[in-house]
């Protein structure tokens, strides 16, 4: 495998990093610009609007706060999954990786409750500019949560195969890279929550 893609387990001499890690950071740079475009759109829409609701008037703040706590907790379980591999404890890795996927699922369930509540109150993306921005940004974020769950779920299910095949460092590096993405998704929510729920 090392012959196919170089520097996936050992760092390059010039950068001191594996190619995978640089690739993920470059990908995150593009993701920052993607969400940046949406935040810029939010600024344009809000500054130009005659009427813009305060977040707490339109949203369920306790549910949003709970979801923030869920995602922060999932970031901790994600980094603990990586630390467990570093301590050569596969069982704990599987426990923390499973918990990360489960917390991602809880986040999506709470989001589903919020969305259905909005729909029951006839609050759709077409209803107002605020709601259009809200559904677009939280929807894009939810897609990222789903993608992160898929990646973490893959390593949760296949971690033992990597471990028993002797590809331990490869698994550690890939889980760290998956974690970089998951933490980015957490950071996006750290900004989305006050912008859409509290301001």
């Amino acid at each position, binding site marked *: 495998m090392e012959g196919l893609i170089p520097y996936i387990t050992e760092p390059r001499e010039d950068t001191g990093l594996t190619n995978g890690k*640089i690739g993920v950071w470059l990908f995150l740079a593009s993701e920052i610009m993607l969400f*940046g475009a949406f935040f810029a759109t939010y600024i344009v829409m809000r500054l130009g609007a005659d009427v813009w609701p305060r977040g707490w008037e339109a949203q369920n703040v306790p549910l949003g706060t709970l979801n923030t706590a869920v995602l922060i907790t999932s970031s901790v379980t994600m980094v603990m999954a990586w*630390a467990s591999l*570093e301590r050569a404890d596969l069982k704990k890795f599987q426990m923390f990786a499973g918990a990360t996927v489960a917390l991602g699922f809880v986040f999506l369930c709470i989001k589903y409750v919020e969305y259905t509540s909005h729909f029951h109150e006839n609050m759709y993306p077409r209803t107002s500019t605020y709601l259009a921005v809200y559904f677009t940004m939280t929807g894009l974020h939810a897609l990222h949560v789903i993608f992160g769950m898929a990646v973490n779920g893959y390593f949760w299910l296949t971690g033992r195969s990597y471990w028993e095949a002797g590809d331990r460092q490869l698994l550690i590096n890939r889980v760290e890279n998956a974690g970089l993405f998951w933490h980015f998704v957490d950071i996006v929510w*750290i900004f989305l929550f*006050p912008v859409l729920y509290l301001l």
Partner: protein
Amino acid sequence: MENHAANHAVDIDRQIRGYMVVFVALLAMTAITVGVSYLHLEVRHAVAVALVIACFKASLVVLFFMHLISERHVIFVILAFTVAFFLVLMILPILTNLDHVRI
């Protein structure tokens, strides 16, 4: 070799204690952000408070959970370019709307 493994284990244990401190700090700052929102401050003040806390929370996640605090030079170069372009993306719409802001 055994010494190296023992040092590595101690280092990881120290990092885990750091993760727990960051976890508590993130939850506490979330509570503060929500608490401040119940004061129903003027928009400009609410934006300032919320963004300062959010930036601090994001910094903790990037530095400790994403290990930027111990990362290599090349990652900082990538991030410096990204932050510069991101700031342009944020500041341009604000500047173009300064003449008729309604907040």
